[in-house]
């Protein structure tokens, strides 16, 4: 909803107003939740949100100015990290007024944390093939099934749940989107250990878990389009999330609360830099191993750097086109695939450089085991968030306009589709 430009303040006035308000109200000894509630009420927590829901309908230029002012003042903003912002975006677009009223405040204050309950063991690439069931019984829905790859499920209060409510229609048309209360007897969360030793994700088991009728987001059986909103926001929020982790520090109780929150939020992601292959470490490692003048190693390093830099420049091209308001070219869809190539090439070069020591962990390995962690984390990059195979399909079909494969699973009742 774009606001009328005539109503918008000029940036300088806005900055002054924000600063004056902060000078009056900011107190590092306040409780974090209390402060964020105050800030959210002003609309300056998420100025790009609608006026009726904690926002001011500002365009991103003004919204960024407010954020900037808060940050440079040294104050803390509303809670914008983690999966909660996916929930917020989804609720803003598809939620009822009652749902927005109930959940948005707790999202911004940081009181509530959320998780996303979409993927299942049996439906990874084929998300719409999920089989967790929701059966309506009187005044509630009863949930049974299993979800997986659920970051933060162990500390979330709420989950965005996609479950099947009609088995007699084609797969995309029988799904409903729910807000489920994670803290109830029918929900069991178990950490899922990965091959690199971390447990960033969870499995979530539903056994007769309960969801009240008013917790359906969007239409009954219309959950697929709601979920698409969540997914579309996923990348953007993931970026914000990372930026968030590194921000404010200061003196006062509120900063301790914030630091604790940040630690919790960032915990599952701490191996993510290694997943990307750490090309930044390649040259220093080659020098340390006295291999930086080895012609064969140099070719491998050069190939990696060419790939990495070309990828970065391609991302820059996409951003510039976006900033200039130009239609997105192919360069915008290639980042994930390029990242796979870069990460794999980097892992190979790291192996080449570290030799036998590449697999030594902890204090025995190079960089206290970081190289080993790279080798064990890189395999995730071509799988998580859509496998390389799915990316190839998407790029070929959506960017190059190539024909789709004939499909046999989209126009028949879901119950008749072969599945595991």
């Amino acid at each position, binding site marked *: 909803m774009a606001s009328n430009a005539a109503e918008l303040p000029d940036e300088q006035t806005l900055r002054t107003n924000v600063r004056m308000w902060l000078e009056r109200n900011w107190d590092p000894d306040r409780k974090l939740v209390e402060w964020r509630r105050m800030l959210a009420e002003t609309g300056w927590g998420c100025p790009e949100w609608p006026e009726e829901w904690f926002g001011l309908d500002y365009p991103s230029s003004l919204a960024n100015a407010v954020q900037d002012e808060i940050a440079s003042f040294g104050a803390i903003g509303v809670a914008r990290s983690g999966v909660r912002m996916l929930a917020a975006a989804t609720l803003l677009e598809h939620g009822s007024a009652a749902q927005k009223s109930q959940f948005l405040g707790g999202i911004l204050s940081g009181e509530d944390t959320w998780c996303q309950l979409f993927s299942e063991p049996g439906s990874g690439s084929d998300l719409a093939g999920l089989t967790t069931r929701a059966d309506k019984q009187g005044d509630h829905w009863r949930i049974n099934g299993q979800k997986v790859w659920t970051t933060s499920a162990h500390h979330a209060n709420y989950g965005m749940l996609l479950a099947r409510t009609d088995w007699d229609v084609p797969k995309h048309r029988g799904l409903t989107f729910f807000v489920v209360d994670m803290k109830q007897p029918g929900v069991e969360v178990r950490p899922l250990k990965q091959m690199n030793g971390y447990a960033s994700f969870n499995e979530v088991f539903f056994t007769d878990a309960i969801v009240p009728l008013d917790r359906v987001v969007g239409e009954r059986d219309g959950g697929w389009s709601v979920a698409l909103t969540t997914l579309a926001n996923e990348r953007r929020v993931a970026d914000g999330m990372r930026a968030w982790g590194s921000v404010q520090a200061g003196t006062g109780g509120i900063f301790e609360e914030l630091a604790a929150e940040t630690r919790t939020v960032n915990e599952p992601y701490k191996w993510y830099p290694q997943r990307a292959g750490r090309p930044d470490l390649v040259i220093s490692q080659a020098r340390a191993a006295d291999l930086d003048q080895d012609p064969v190693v140099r070719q491998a390093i050069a190939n990696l750097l060419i790939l990495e830099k070309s990828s970065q420049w391609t991302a820059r*091209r996409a951003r510039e086109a976006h900033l200039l308001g130009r239609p997105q070219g192919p*360069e915008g869809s290639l980042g994930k695939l390029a990242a796979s190539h870069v990460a794999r090439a980097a892992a190979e070069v790291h192996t080449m450089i570290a030799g036998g020591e590449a697999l030594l962990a902890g204090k025995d390995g190079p960089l206290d085991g970081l190289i080993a962690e790279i080798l064990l984390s890189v395999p995730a990059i071509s799988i998580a968030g859509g496998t390389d195979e799915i990316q190839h*399909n998407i790029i070929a079909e959506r*960017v190059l306009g190539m024909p789709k*494969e004939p499909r046999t699973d989209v126009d028949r009742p879901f119950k008749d589709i072969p599945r595991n």
Partner: protein
Amino acid sequence: MKFSFTEEQALFRDIVRRFVVEQSPREEVRKVMETNAGYDPALWQRLCESLGLHALHIPEKYGGQGFGAVELCIAMEELGRGLVCSPLFGSSVLAGTAILEAGMAQDRELWLPPLAASERRYALAVDEGGGCWDAKSLTMQYTQQGDTYSLSGKKTFVVDGCSADVIVVAAREPETKGLNGITFFMVEASAPGVNRRLLDTVDQTRKLAEIDFNNASAKLLGTPGEGGSALERTIDLCRVYLSNEMVGGAQRLLEDAVTYAGTRLQFGRTIGSFQAIKHKCADLLLHVELAKSAAYCAAEAAATGDPEFSALAALSKAMAADTYVKTAAQTIQIHGGIGFTWENDTHLYFKRAKSSETLFGQPAWHRERMLRGWQI
């Protein structure tokens, strides 16, 4: 650019592209590539008159268009896309850049206006075998008697060398090595002692010559012995221009492959609906876009005098070459048997890709140069 083109640049690209589509369809390319000259004088005249491409990067004071490296790269990309046979690369780009980089004011005044007026065509003779055009390994020495200079020896891989009127030659002062002592000369192609021979190259769309100089009279260009860095910069610039030409060709191949895969039916389906073909095309797109980013970035570095320019030139050349060759090979594969025929156009691009891969040095060599350029 670096990361986006201006609206004027985008418009310029459209104009060149339209010209190429209308004036140099691939039937024209096939006709012209069979000739010894390797270009159609009438088409070239139109290219000069309508678009001024021959003088795009020549400063206005010498009668040129006064545009920069980015615009020249755009033109190269579009000509590469259309596989246009023209003296642009050999004459304006290679020789013109050498004169701009090596010549003193009076040299430029003397030699650039005829180029900008498209009265004469030049060629640049540097390489003596191998095709790297490495300034440091140049061995031809000049002979000086008072104010007159003469050249003896052999140059090869001279782009459009047989059809040029004047040859810009890089030679060295006796007893020097490396970049020291390198000196540029202008030699009339018709001068006694100049013998030119068309090389038998598989890429018929780019004519290469071997030129023997036998005590040929030469005029000095620039300061004697001081041409080393001008030569290096000239070749690096031309590497970037060639990189942009290559990404144009690769992009066109990818489009051809996608189009063919979208129409060719086998097993009752378009072959483009099979993942084997589809994923290959997606992978090519990724590499073509990465190579474009590198070529555009190097173009900008050429225009702005970026201190990393030489490393970026090497990077873009390596990336463009690997990508063009891969794209060409895969486009043949996607076409199947028809892709291996003379009748299908893919092989013309394949041959251009292969000849561009090694011209001015091949990818592995450039990767090494890139690292050295970054002091790695």
